[in-house]
């Protein structure tokens, strides 16, 4: 079964061969003088009706070279052409009818994109009672992240209630003292305080003679007034079941975050070791290495997260159960740590 890489290589070869055959095809004199409309008519050679090529995937997961033709009539004669009927470098060639396409209405595509991204403004607004998936920031500070979910210590429901998020959100990468107040939303007003930093897992950076590895970017802050928050709720997510679940590749996931609102994606890999994460800037990178990471890609080419979504708890889409804690990413990939490990570290469970 061909891999994506093999199909790409075969595609390059296929295109070169296609151009070669098209260039060398005999051109009837009348056609050489002037182009004519041929819609609905079979062309002299099916190759003249090929208008797009690419890599496709069959239902069984096999990658193939895809060939698209303007009209259905030429498809019938495609089998007479060796290039269109035989595998290229061992990769099958699938021919499909694809009529001339019409561009989407721009306003319609904007509406779809907005709907898919949820409503970020709602996640940045003041919410009382406070659910999971909303903006949080240090009192009077200059940055924001996401309140992932609420967690509780002790199994009888009487233990203290905490906010779970990232170290780099609640502890500003090991810098904030315990007791630092956090507001919802980002605010300089002390009356918006909802929690105070309780504990964090230090992020370890390389030093001379030391190449430390990290597993989680996580911290908790104790809720100052439990009456101001609501457990068991994640803003704009219909189904949230606060029971931990192990992440799996191929798992469809969702999250509610401060910057992009509700997004969906797929887990690409789990237990990834050697992930380099930049805690500085592009110009002055400060790199920490993580093991046991989870990588996620957004649905339909949309980013799963952006800066400010850090701390979001990632849920399996169908069950609404937490699988990961988002902490890094770029425009394509989101990196998360195992939320079970974070909960074990602080001896808490989602509520």
């Amino acid at each position, binding site marked *: 079964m061909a891999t994506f890489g*093999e199909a790409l290589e075969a595609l390059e070869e296929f295109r070169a061969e296609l151009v070669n055959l098209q260039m060398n095809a005999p051109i009837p004199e009348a056609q050489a003088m002037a182009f004519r409309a041929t819609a609905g008519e079979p062309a002299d050679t099916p190759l003249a009706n090929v208008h797009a090529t690419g890599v496709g995937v069959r239902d069984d997961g096999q990658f193939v070279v895809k060939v698209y033709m303007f009209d259905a009539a030429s498809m019938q004669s495609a089998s007479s052409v060796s290039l269109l009927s035989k595998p290229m470098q061992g990769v099958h060639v699938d021919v499909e009818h694809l009529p001339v396409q019409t561009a989407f209405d721009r306003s319609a595509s904007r509406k779809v994109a907005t709907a898919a991204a949820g409503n970020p403004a709602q996640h940045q607004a003041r919410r009382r009672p406070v659910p999971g998936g909303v903006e949080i920031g240090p009192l009077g500070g*200059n940055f924001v*992240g996401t309140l992932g979910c609420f967690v509780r210590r002790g199994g009888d429901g009487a233990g203290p209630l905490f906010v779970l998020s990232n170290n780099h959100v609640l502890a500003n990468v090991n810098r904030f003292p315990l007791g630092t107040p956090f507001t919802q939303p980002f605010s300089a007003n002390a009356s918006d305080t909802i929690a105070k930093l309780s504990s964090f897992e230090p992020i370890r950076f390389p030093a001379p003679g030391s190449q430390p590895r990290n597993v989680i970017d996580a911290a908790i802050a104790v809720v100052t007034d439990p009456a101001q928050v609501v457990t068991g709720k994640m803003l704009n997510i219909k189904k949230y079941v606060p029971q931990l679940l192990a992440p799996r590749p*191929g798992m469809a996931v969702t999250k509610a975050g401060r910057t992009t609102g509700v997004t969906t994606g797929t887990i690409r890999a789990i*237990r990834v070791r050697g992930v380099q994460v930049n805690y500085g800037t592009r110009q002055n990178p400060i790199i920490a290495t993580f093991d046991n990471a989870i990588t996620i890609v957004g649905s339909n080419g949309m980013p799963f997260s952006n800066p400010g979504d850090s701390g979001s708890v990632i849920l399996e889409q169908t069950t609404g159960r937490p699988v990961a804690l988002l902490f890094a990413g*770029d425009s394509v990939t989101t990196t998360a740590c195992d939320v079970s490990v974070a909960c074990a570290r602080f001896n808490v469970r989602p509520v």
Partner: protein
Amino acid sequence: MKPVRMHHPGEPTTEEPPQRLLDLADAIADPSVIQCGITTTRDGRWGLYVTVPADTTVPIASVEQKAEGFPVVYEAELSEPVRAGPAYPRRKR
């Protein structure tokens, strides 16, 4: 052959990855391997997930040998490390 730019895993055929695969993932130590983890192939088979520089020729013999028959998915490493950082709402974009 070059590594794929973006791997798309399928639903795994079993709930948990084989323990042997987990052990193998911890043992991969080829110098061209940047990251190593667990994934599934498009058809849901559990396998090794390996990132390598984009210009690396794959498959890598030492990795395949260590993989003991499990499929290996080679993905091109990102052009720069992913960033972990909050948002700064007062900064102008």
